[in-house]
């Protein structure tokens, strides 16, 4: 759906502050159809610039962007037909009514005249804004406005949604609603390219992610692959049925085991190696008479992984 090839955007720093800043540095990326692709990174990483280049709002310094096979620079209006865009600091026309707002964009996207009223009602229903249909936008809550913004982005039924920090500034309830909405849109076959600071949300809805910093992509791939990447050491937890066995000492004496910590009748530790190492350790432990009643692998959150990658802990 999206193909970035050596995409680069340079900005000049003011004279006296040095050379140029590279907001996006030779980004090459493919986002297949039907993905929910999350772009993660700190402020100033170049996420918004990348999104704007995908939408044809910024000209790249080098490189190309194609959306659904259409070169965005060569045929921006054709490419934009396939894109629904929501900006980070979004604003709506407060003096329009909800239906008028969607009607305006439906016409602006040159939808079939006869299909517009039906589509406007459908989107209002989808966004759960039926009760606000004839109200001025100025009276909507922040969450409702955000949903209307998403509604505007999908009014012309584009296959790709590009959403820049859609959850920013939303209360927990509105965030939950937005997540449900995005999952629903994904289930309807939309490809979603999304940035967010709320990594827990991204972890929940994304199928693929990229971690970006200072214009570079540090990691790109399927969410589970990225999460698994760099895990040569796995964190495990063993629970014993009774406390008679000196599990901490036994584990500490074994090669490849580190970071052993007791947590009640359970012990947490890190183990180098793959599944066969776990199987061997478990077999030997039971042979020693340890009353093992549970073994689990502790998952790492995206937030933790991101902080480890950005701090250079994981190369």
């Amino acid at each position: 759906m999206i193909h970035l090839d050596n995409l680069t955007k340079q900005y000049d720093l003011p004279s006296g502050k040095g050379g140029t800043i590279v907001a996006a540095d030779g980004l090459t990326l493919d986002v297949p159809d039907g993905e929910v692709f999350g772009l993660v990174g700190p402020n100033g990483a170049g996420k918004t610039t990348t999104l704007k280049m995908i939408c044809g709002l910024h000209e790249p310094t080098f490189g190309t962007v194609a959306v659904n096979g259409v070169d965005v620079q060569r045929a921006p209006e054709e490419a934009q037909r396939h894109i629904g865009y929501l900006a980070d600091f979004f604003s709506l026309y407060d003096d329009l009514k909800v239906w008028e707002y969607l009607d305006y964009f439906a016409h602006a996207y040159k939808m079939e005249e006869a299909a517009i009223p039906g589509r406007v009602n459908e989107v209002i229903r989808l966004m759960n804004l039926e009760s606000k249909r004839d109200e001025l936008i100025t009276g909507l809550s922040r969450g409702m406005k955000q949903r209307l913004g998403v509604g505007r982005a999908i009014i012309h039924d584009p296959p790709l949604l590009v959403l820049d920090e859609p959850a920013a500034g939303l209360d927990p309830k509105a965030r939950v609603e937005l997540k449900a909405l995005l999952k629903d849109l994904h289930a309807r076959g939309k490809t979603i390219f999304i940035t967010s600071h709320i990594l827990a949300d991204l972890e929940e809805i994304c199928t693929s992610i990229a971690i970006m910093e200072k214009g570079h992509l540090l990691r790109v791939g399927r969410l589970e692959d990225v999460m698994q990447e760099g895990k040569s050491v796995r964190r495990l937890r063993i629970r014993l049925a009774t406390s008679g066995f000196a599990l901490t000492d036994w584990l500490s004496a074994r090669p490849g085991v580190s970071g052993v910590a007791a947590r009640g009748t359970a012990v947490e530790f890190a183990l180098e190696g793959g599944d066969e190492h776990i199987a061997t350790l478990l077999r030997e432990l039971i042979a020693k008479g340890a009353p093992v009643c549970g073994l689990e692998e502790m998952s790492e959150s995206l937030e933790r992984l991101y902080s480890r990658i950005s701090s250079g802990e994981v190369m």
Partner: protein
Amino acid sequence: MSLLFSNPEFIRNARIQLRSRRLLAGGVISAVASITTWESVMHADIDFRFFGLRGGGAVFALCLGAQICIALIGGGICCLLSVQREKELNTFDYQRVTRLTSFELAIGKLFGAPIATYVGVLFLMPVALIAAAKGHIPALLVLEVYVLMLIGCVTYHAFALMISVLLGRSGTVLAILFFLAIVLLSAQRNLYIRWRIQSLSPFYVMDLLNGYAYRMMDRVGFPIWPDGFFDKHVAHWIVFSLIHVSLTTWFLIAVRRNLKRDPSIYEVYSPLQAFLFSLYLSVLMLGFFPWSTIFVRGTVQFVDVITAATPNSIEQSLLEAAVLLFGALGLTLLRSRERARQRVRELGERAAGWLAAIWPTPYLVAAVAALSGAVILLIGKYRDAGSEWNLHLALYEAVFLCVWLSRDTLYLQWMGVRRGKRTLVAAVLYLTIFYVSLGVLFGSLNLFNQPRGAAYTALLLPMPVFGMEPSLWSQAPRLWIGALFFQAASALIFAGLQRHRLQEFLGRPPARAAG
């Protein structure tokens, strides 16, 4: 019409601005204003006149004046804010990603943004029309003033819209002040006095009413002389309409070109468009010049400021007028740093060589050559056979204008491709300081009044050249030619500096982020 009434942007503006409560409020205010004006004029104790009209005619003139102010100034400010405000609110990007073409968006904004002011004008129409009937103003005249007013206002709105597109997220107040200054300046009669053309301001329609009033009294009112294009009489309403329609088209071309572009690579016009626009303005300037009467002492009506002109003074006067025109052309052709970098990316070495480094000189040279050639030909055609004319001096002045404009434009272009914030604004500021300081310095040394001193000042300033008498030239021709070569050398230095900057773009971006 369907382009307008089915235009989503027009409809959006209409929906926002014409809500029933707002219409009701506007209607009530207009009704109160109408009744008050009617009552106070029609039942005044004194002999109240407005633009020579009394009674119903005076009410009509008052209403018309108010309508022009509402439509021209109010509507202009609405257009000026239309795109700039969208940028400020962050809604403009949403319009840019729709499938509306730049032209559709431009038309929607041009007529949609000031729609409330048009409705305000309509609210005053009942009292205006009743007053016109009561004052026995001919229906054809009423129709003419409204049509001309509308055409004129649309041009100013298109101009305001063009400024709005080119503005960033700030500078609104300055832009409004600039627009108001243009409105006021263009309404000044002195602006048109050198040319055989009446006012191009929408306020001109008030002169029409005034002329009618004085004709009714068999008296002479404000001087109104017929428009003449290359000495052919043309009715002013035709001139007014054609010039305004063509200017609106030019402004819309600029809006259409930039409206959906990345702001970092805005270009008001393509080089060819800018060149053709400057030629169009040159044709207007020369066409409406009073060629057949200018050389005849004492017989020129209303152009007394340049009666008894000599061929050389006419040429100098026209070249001086052209400085503003070609200065604007040069500014329009300047490439931003981002645009220059984009060209280097697309064209490679070719966009960083010497030909690119002398940009935008070729277009300036062509424009100045075309105008100067036309001026020299027309002077040759219209001047008295016996009048003294130094053709060499005329040619020298044309070449000097060309080289001097190139020097300053190359300087601005070099500054424009340098790294930094608002480098072009800084460059214009430095240039202004340069001219003011040197003008004061040379003036205090009395160099402008000495034959050799004036020639030395021409090394840096153009003013002595455009006020030069043939006798001054003959006293130090080598010095004047030396000044010309010095200007050309300065221009080459700036071209070299620009080339150096362009060469920097040839490398790939640094491998790692710098910020």
